[in-house]
Each structure stands twice: as structure tokens, then as C-alpha cells.
């Protein structure tokens, strides 16, 4: 078990290193695409903490991306703030605002379970969308806000797409590391316990509400970080970023890769954003492909791409069992009878 775990970590590190080396040497289309994927991946991973590790399917995660992105865009366009060293302050502001919003929303949402949790997070996400869409004087309404220019600090000019890619990559790697440590910590383990059986955790003396609430806030904070990066990546922040389909997309990306694996969310994001950006330049019917990916994933791959090896292994062991002729159950029955 430990060995395969180390191997997995090694593979992930190797792939990330390869991405960091290869991508900057490709064309600017791919560099921008990779930057988008990395920035959005942080949101998807944050959602995975809720969805995969805690069992809370949030249908309004785009709200936190929106808060981070709008905070960045408003500070940049109205106050010319965040183009120098103060970029780091913007990161902190985006994260804190999103966490604060999650703290408020969490108070309302955490008590709900199952399909009601879906509905209430949808409603809360719509609140943020409604403000983004209608509060013209602050958010620019339907047109959104353009973010002109990117920060410069330490002699780094983020307007250079390769430099910017590395900065986003750094944030991504740091987020992945922090979330990885988090889900492996005792706190993360108790979240998994809540996902599996909340009542048992309560009986064991855990304050499950508080655990879920903290997880909700942490996920919101990472969503805010993702939003700050997204604002500078896309160069425009609009209600499109907080609309319900963005939240649903994030869930699909997590489920496609495999919920509860963190890295699966990154794979899912790569596939969906990659498909969307690449196919839309090739064929007019690209959205069919996206719909098909949804339907196929949900119906045939509930454990996602990361779950495929496990399923093949199970299948192999099942057919092995039938060859031997006795399943475990039959053996148990036999021993019970004797």
C-alpha cells in the first residue's frame, strides 16, 4: 500500500515537472490553455475536498471563483490596485473574501443533506450571480470587467505569458500540496469518516457540523485563489464565470477525473477545458462532444478515470474467482455449514 502510494506521488511529480518544462516551449495557444487549466484546476480541487472527501456536492462553487475574480477585477479597474507588489495583497484579499463568503453561506447550507444541499448551494450561487449580473455600477453587469495588464514585481513581468504560466503553476503546485496534506491529515480523515457515515462519527464524539463547516470555508478560500488567478488569465470577468453552468462544469470535471482523488480533478479539468478550447476551433458541433462526455461519464464511469484501474482489477479478480469455482461467500457458507 505504502509503496504504491509513493509511486503515485512520484508519477504526479514527474508529470508536473514535465508540464513545467514542456509547455513553455510550445506555442502561445498551448501556454494560455495550460494556464487556464491550472487556474481552474484549483477550483475543481477545492470542490473535490467537499464532493469527494466530505460528501458535500456543492452546486455553487463558482461563486467563490467569482468573488476572487471580481475582487481582482474591481480593484484593478477602479483603483489601479494590484499591479505591483500589492498583487500579493490582492491574492490575500481574494482568498479572505471568498472564505468569508463561504463562512456565511456555510452557516445556511451545512445543515442540509443530499439533494437539499444541492438546491441550497444552487440558490446561494445564484445570489452571487444575480449581484454580478445586475449590480452594474460595481460589476459592469452583463459586459463584465476587463482586466487590462498584469502585475509586475521582483523584476518579473506577468504580461509575459511564460512568466505568468510559471506563477500560476507555482500557485497550483502549492495548492495541490496543501490540499494533499490536508486530506491526509487527521482532519481530512475525519472528513472521509463523515462522508462514509456521519452518524457514526457523531457517536464517536466528533462535531461533524464543525468539520463540514471548516471544510466548506477551506474550499471557498481555494476557490477565491482560483478566481484571482482566473481574472488575470482570462483578462475579463463576467457573470459567465459565476453562472450555474460553471459550477456544474466544475463538478463534472471532478467526477470525470474521479472524485476524492484531487489529481483526478486536474485530469478532468484538462480534458473538459482542453476539449472545449481545442474542439471549438475545429468543428461547429463541439458541444455535442461535451454533452456526450457528461452522459458517458455519469452512466458508465461513476468513479471517474482514476477509478478505471481499480475496476479492471476488480473485474480481473472476479473472473479469476469464477475460474476457481468458489466465491468467498460460498466458502463462508461452506465453513459455516461444517
Amino acid at each position, binding site marked *: 500500500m505504502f509503496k504504491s502510494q509513493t509511486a503515485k506521488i512520484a508519477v504526479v511529480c514527474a508529470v508536473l515537472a514535465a508540464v513545467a518544462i514542456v509547455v513553455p516551449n510550445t506555442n502561445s495557444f498551448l501556454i494560455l490553455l495550460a494556464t487556464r487549466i491550472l487556474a481552474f484546476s484549483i477550483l475543481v480541487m477545492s470542490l473535490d475536498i467537499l464532493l469527494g472527501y466530505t460528501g458535500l456536492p456543492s452546486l455553487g462553487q463558482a461563486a467563490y471563483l467569482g468573488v476572487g475574480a471580481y475582487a481582482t477585477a474591481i480593484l484593478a479597474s477602479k483603483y489601479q490596485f494590484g499591479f505591483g507588489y500589492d498583487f500579493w495583497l490582492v491574492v490575500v484579499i481574494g482568498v479572505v473574501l471568498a472564505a468569508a463568503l463561504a463562512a456565511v453561506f456555510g452557516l445556511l447550507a451545512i445543515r442540509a443533506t443530499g439533494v437539499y444541499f444541492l438546491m441550497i448551494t444552487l440558490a446561494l450561487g*445564484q445570489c452571487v450571480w444575480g449581484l454580478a449580473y445586475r449590480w452594474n455600477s460595481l460589476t459592469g453587469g452583463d459586459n463584465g470587467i476587463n482586466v487590462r495588464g498584469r502585475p509586475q514585481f521582483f523584476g518579473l513581468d506577468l504580461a509575459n505569458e511564460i512568466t505568468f504560466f510559471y506563477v500560476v503553476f507555482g500557485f497550483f503546485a502549492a495548492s495541490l500540496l496543501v490540499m494533499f496534506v490536508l486530506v491526509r491529515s487527521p482532519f481530512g480523515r475525519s472528513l472521509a469518516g463523515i462522508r462514509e457515515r456521519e452518524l457514526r462519527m457523531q457517536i464517536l464524539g466528533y462535531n461533524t457540523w464543525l468539520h463540514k463547516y471548516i471544510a466548506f470555508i477551506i474550499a471557498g478560500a481555494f476557490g477565491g485563489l482560483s478566481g484571482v488567478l482566473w481574472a488575470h488569465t482570462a483578462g475579463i470577468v463576467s457573470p459567465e464565470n459565476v453562472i450555474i453552468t460553471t459550477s456544474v462544469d466544475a463538478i463534472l470535471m471532478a467526477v470525470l477525473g474521479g472524485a476524492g482523488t484531487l489529481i483526478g480533478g486536474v485530469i478532468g479539468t484538462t480534458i473538459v477545458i482542453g476539449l472545449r478550447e481545442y474542439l471549438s476551433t475545429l468543428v461547429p458541433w463541439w458541444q455535442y462532444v461535451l454533452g456526450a462526455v457528461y452522459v458517458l461519464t455519469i452512466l458508465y464511469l461513476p468513479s471517474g478515470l482514476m477509478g478505471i484501474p481499480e475496476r479492471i482489477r476488480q473485474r480481473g479478480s472476479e473472473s479469476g474467482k469464477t475460474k476457481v469455482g468458489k466465491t468467498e461467500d460460498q466458502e463462508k457458507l461452506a465453513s459455516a455449514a461444517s
Partner: protein
Amino acid sequence: MNTQFWIIQAFNGISYGALLFLLGAGLSLIFGVMRIVNLAHGSYFLLGGYVALTVIWTTDSWLLSLPVAALAIAVLGMVMERLFLRSAGLEFARNGLIAIGVALLVALAIDEWTQFIASGNWIMFVVVALVIAAGLYYLLGNVSTIAIEADPLRQVLLTVGFAFLFQQAALDIWTGNNFDIFPPGPLTQSMVIGQLYFPLYRVFMIATAAFIGVALWLAMEKTRMGAMVRATVDDSEMARGVGIDTSRISMFIFGLGAFLAGLGGVIGGAFLGIYPGLDFEVLPLAFAVVIIGGMGSLGGAAIGALLVGLADNFGKALFPEISYFTLYAPMALILAVKPTGLFGRE
């Protein structure tokens, strides 16, 4: 801000609420019976409008477009429910449909290089598609699947997948242009009471919603079928236990919900217009109706629709900048306090 303003705004709000009732009542029933959050409900609304447009273009009859569009969407909803949301027993049909769909996409992608269609070689294209479809069908049949019924999240995502597919299909069939549905002449006039003008079309909307609401209420309260539906909403396991065929009920309700949404699309098309993106614009409003009113309750949907219609209208007129916020924030609060909605059954 005189009385005139209040009367006109209230009238507009009520007529908008009438439209939302058509949309929300179906969603509410579907949720009540199946516990499914159907995110394709807005697509039914939009597709209803589009089908009506086609009927109007070919037959020139607005009156005919109402039942045709609503029935077409009802069939669509029932197929979606029976094959995909609850496919037990019909997995082969589901797999076959998916295999054909995916094979068409793959064949189209291959055709980008081989250019069979462009060179008029249709037969080759069909052969390629059929071969791929057969292979896929075999593959899908051998994938062990976990039933989707027990997992609300997967059901939601599946309906979103369909919403995307419908969106693209609508774009391909009806282009991305904005259309208007023009009701027949008499309905475009206005009623004059005192100094106030009331568009007859809005009166018609209110009358239609009231008629359908009463008909639905009678069907639910006074018929055997209605009693079976109510039993399923309250406790589907118990209902199955006493011999109610709940799977037929859920298919029927899904069809009914789609029917109402499609009808709403035709009626609403005259006053919202029909354009890509309308589906996800009306969807959250429908959810607001359902949540405020209470899930699975018809009367609740009526009150919810009225409240949302009025709140939306007055919100936009009085404080436009936060008008959506004033709609969704109460919705979230209601959910937090009473998850089943104001008038929902526990």
C-alpha cells in the same frame, strides 16, 4: 410611483407568475415524485418554443402549435426519463442510443479527414458509423454500471448533459437567431379599463395558467391517478408496497412536467422571445418557484410562482441593481430554515 404604477406592475408580475407556474409546477411534481433535480427543465421550455416556431412556419397556425409543441416535449421528457434516468430493463435501448450517438460524432470527426460526406459518399459514412456503433454497443454492454437512481448528484449531472446536448441540437436546427412567436391578432390588442391598458395576451397567460392549475388540482385531488401520484410523493416505498406502479407514475409525471414546460415555452415565447441561452435563464427562476412554494406541492407552486413573478417585477422596477439577489437570497433562507419549502410536505 402612483397607484397606476402599482397596478400595472402587479398585473405584469401576476402574468409573469402565470408563466412561471407552468414551468415550476412540472419541476415541482418531478421533484416530489422522483427526488430528481431536473436541470434540463429550462431546455424543455426553450425546445417547446422552437417546436412551436416550426409548426407555425409550416402550418401558419398558432393554435395548433400549442398542443403539438407541448406533446412533442412530453414525449422527449418521457424518453429521457425511461431510458436514461431510470433505465432498469431497457439498458439495451439506452446503450444502443448512446452507441449510435457517439458513433455519429466519431464518424463525423473521422470525416474531417476522409471527406466522405463532402464527396457525396454517404454510404461509406454510414458504414463507418455503423461499425463504430456496433463496437461501442458491445463495449457498453460489458461495462458494469451502478444504477443511477440512488444518487441525486449523478442524476443532476445527467440532466445537465442533456441540457447541453439540447442546446447544441437547437443551435443546429433553429440557428442561433432570436425569434418571436406572434400570437393571432385578437390577442395582441389591449383591454382598456379606466386609463390603464392591459395587454390581452397577458390576460390570456393568466387565464391559461389558472385553467391548467385548476385542471391539475382536480386531477390530483379527485382522480385515482392523482391519489396514486400523491401517495408516491409522500412515501414512494410505501406506495410501491400497496401495489402502486411507481415507475409508471414517475414516467407519467416526467412527461407531464415536460408537457407543461413545453407549453410554457410556446406561451412565453411571445413575450420573452426564443433565443439560445433562454434555457438557463428561466431555469433558476423555476427553481425559485419550486423552493419557495415547496417541493411536490401544486398549491405551493402556484403561490411560489405568484411570489416570484411579483418579486421579479417589483425588484426590477424598484431596485434594479440587486433585483436577482432579492429573489435568490430569500430562496436560500427558506431552504436553510425549511428544506422542503414553505408549503412542502415533510
